[in-house]
């Protein structure tokens, strides 16, 4: 889940002062006084930002021991665990929001994980690197190799990202998992947001990163 364990990935939307535009978008999506579960807490930066918001009570799960230790020594309620294995232990509706930041592509079973997010939380926030970005496409098209760049620094054989998807793939998955897309944000490499009015194909081509706010489809 900590995708920055050995190779340093450049983070889309990270400013020079290390603040992150994608985190701010997530924080902005969350109502005050809510209870949040952050799946894949990494070093706790996002959870700390979330908890700074009025009345927000945050919990987290993180796979890497280094990440968990960082979180716990920061005083965050984070447990060492695995999105694929441990979400089953959370009761239905136990959180207002479940956040999955930059993690879904590293899970073994993204669909199951997404279904758990929507079961445990009334809303889910999912952000992921978009594999449909034009740079990724041109890499494959012209170089004939799996894309390796500043944002995706891993080789095909050592990447923790075993289930990359594109914006369009994710939109399709939401349909299959009975999730309603309430809001969506795209970030370009320089952190510029993509306009709401843009069509999905445009997003899929130019968003380096996507952030979705989902809720359960009401039957």
């Amino acid at each position: 889940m900590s995708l920055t364990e050995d190779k340093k990935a450049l983070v889309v939307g990270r400013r020079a002062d290390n603040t992150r535009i994608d985190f701010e978008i997530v924080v902005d999506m969350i109502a005050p006084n809510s209870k949040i579960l952050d799946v894949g807490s990494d070093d706790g930066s996002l959870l700390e930002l979330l908890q700074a918001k009025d009345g927000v009570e945050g919990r987290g799960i993180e796979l890497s021991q280094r990440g968990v230790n960082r979180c716990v020594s920061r005083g965050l309620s984070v447990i060492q665990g695995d999105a694929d294995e441990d979400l089953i232990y959370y009761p239905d509706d136990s959180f207002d929001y479940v956040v999955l930041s930059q993690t879904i592509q590293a899970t073994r079973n993204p669909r199951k994980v997404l279904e758990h997010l929507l079961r445990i939380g009334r809303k889910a926030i999912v952000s992921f690197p978009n594999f449909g970005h034009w740079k990724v496409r041109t890499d494959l098209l012209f170089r004939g190799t799996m894309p390796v760049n500043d944002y995706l620094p891993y080789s095909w054989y050592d990447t923790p990202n075993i289930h990359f998807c594109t914006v369009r793939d994710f939109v399709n998955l939401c349909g299959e998992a009975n999730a309603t897309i309430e809001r969506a944000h795209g970030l370009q490499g320089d952190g510029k947001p993509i306009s709401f009015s843009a069509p999905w194909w445009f997003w899929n081509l130019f968003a380096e990163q996507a952030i979705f706010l989902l809720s359960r489809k009401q039957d």
Partner: protein
Amino acid sequence: MIGPTDGDNQDTSSPPRDDTALREAQHPSSKHVTFGEDMPLMLDAGVALSPFTIAFETYGTLNADCSNAILICHALTGDQYAASISPVTGKPGWWENMIGPGKPIDTDRFFVVCGNVLGGCSGSTGPASINPETGKPFGLDLPVITVPDMVRAQKMLLDHLGIEELFCVIGGSMGGMLAIQWAAEHGDKVKSAIFIATAAHHTSQNIAFYEVGRQAVMADPDWHGGRYYDYDVTPRKGLSVARMAAHVTYMSEQSLQSKFGRNLQDRKVKTFSFDADFQIESYLRHQGMTFVDRFDANSYLYVTRAMDYYDLAADYGGQMAKAFMGTKTRFCLVSFTSDWHFPTSESRKIVHALNAAGASVSFVEIDSDKGHDAFLLDEPEFFDAMRGFIGSAARDFGLSSKDSDDEEEAQ
């Protein structure tokens, strides 16, 4: 022809027992409180214990609104001397590295209480204590003590000290079981809880190892059915074998291999005898022999039994989560990768139960090759986690930190 011998272990006669440990069991030099006939303790065994004594140590100062108390629960062979010199061994406290001014359990900020458990042998009522009805040590006349009994006695101690609410209860190993029981039974009185290298019940394997130890004690001819006090002896051989067997479970294979391997002890070649040729043999014998000088054999039977009997989930219809439903306590669990005595999987069971109960829980598994004993040793990541959790719990519950006081003064 002379057969092989064990020349490193000639000690087959029973020397008179060293009285320091027995004297401390019966007349502790630490603080202690005796609850009289008017305050009996109802035991799970179905009888009342009265009068009884709890021996304890305190560190730091209780603040005006009594909100900064931390209860430390010691492990099987621990005592109340968590951060002070043991009068029996003369050695520093068993958690000296954790408790003190500026340490993770900071005695400049917190009032730390550590009591010897009921059934122990460091001054709290246990089998070596004098039975007022006979004027002789209880021996096996003491009813079997359980972990909840120990917690009830601790509760009476805290009431006696004027502490209604604990900022934190902290325990490792058996102490972890007591801390779990505290959080389950007195959740409204416990703001935060730290369970270290522990489990909510003994596995079959845990029970098996301790049964080997108990049988070793009882098989020693010097045990005399638990009445060895009357004979001025102590079952040294049996208790040291018990300690040796248990001690192996506290160390990891990696640590045994790297510390001792197959190295020989002070010799170049094997002696073709049953001497302690290998370093590990010599080390275990030393561990066993030093243990019997400080611990009462019957106490070992009682306290290991209490651990065997403990099963939190069983008290809640088999569902541990029910023990913590609606709890407001903040929890932190710590396990160690190479601990096979109380492995990470046991901590994880507790974490899952706490998740299901909607509790606030932190859980960290520390990478260590030191086995179960790691919780008593210097593990920087463990210390960071303790500092982080205690600090943030103190902020949450409005306990001012020294740092913020200093900052305010600076402004």
